[in-house]
């Protein structure tokens, strides 16, 4: 085998390896994003339920302006990967959820945090892995 052919073979192998790596990485990132999107949708649904509860008067079984007493609906109770926390004065709501796909650290599943500060209906998501 000529020297040039050998060089071409080595360079070709490197190009193929890089292409495979890039493909795998793209697939991985796409999978993670899809999983995070699913979690965010679920967390938004939970938040809508919680906000509805907060806005309902106590006489009608709601929180009367507070998250106090909010319980995750049975639809989500079977979801084992969502944790929520009603913050100070029962006015803030934070949620934390695990996904099913391995996250950026390559070990733990993807994680998403949800924060709804008090006073308004604005909320934000933050990627935790």
């Amino acid at each position, binding site marked *: 085998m000529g020297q040039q052919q050998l060089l071409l073979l080595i360079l070709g192998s*490197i*190009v193929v390896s890089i292409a495979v790596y890039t493909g795998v990485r793209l697939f991985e990132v796409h999978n993670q994003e899809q999983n995070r999107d699913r979690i965010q949708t679920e967390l938004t649904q939970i938040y809508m339920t919680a906000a509805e509860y907060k806005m309902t008067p106590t006489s009608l079984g709601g929180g009367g302006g507070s998250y106090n007493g909010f319980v995750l609906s049975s639809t989500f109770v079977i979801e084992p990967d969502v944790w929520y926390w009603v*913050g100070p004065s029962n006015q803030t709501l934070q949620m*934390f959820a695990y996904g099913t796909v391995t996250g950026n*650290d390559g070990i733990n599943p993807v*994680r998403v945090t949800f924060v709804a*500060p008090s006073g308004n209906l604005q909320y934000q998501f933050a990627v935790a892995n």
Partner: protein
Amino acid sequence: MSWQEEQRNRILARAAYTEKKIRKQNKRLVRIIIGMVILGGAVVLIDNLTRDKGALVPIDFKDQAGTVTNWKRIGFVKSIDESTAEVVVDEAEWKEMLVGERHAVVMLLASYCAAKNQKPDYRLTIKGNVSQKLLVSVDDKRVIVK
């Protein structure tokens, strides 16, 4: 020069020309592949450099006490006073954390301290171990996470 010799010379010249052309093409091919290797290498390098580190500390909401013990073992939590809910953490690691992970840590510590005190009081303060700067404050009015 005989006709045969002339023909032979013509064939040799043609062969030399073709060989030169092929060599030129091969050189171009090698240059293109080297360019692709450099470009691919750069993409891989940039991807690795700009990639999020992801989770820095393990979090398990099902085993909160175990998680806090683990954080103490790995040195993330330097000290914790459950009765006053005052926590001192590794400042360098805190700064490296993603915002989402910081919120998750706050949630777990607040929940853990509330469970330890056996009351739904989610007051919590987290300070850095070096500067003693307040990193997190959770009181009756709001949650501040820096």
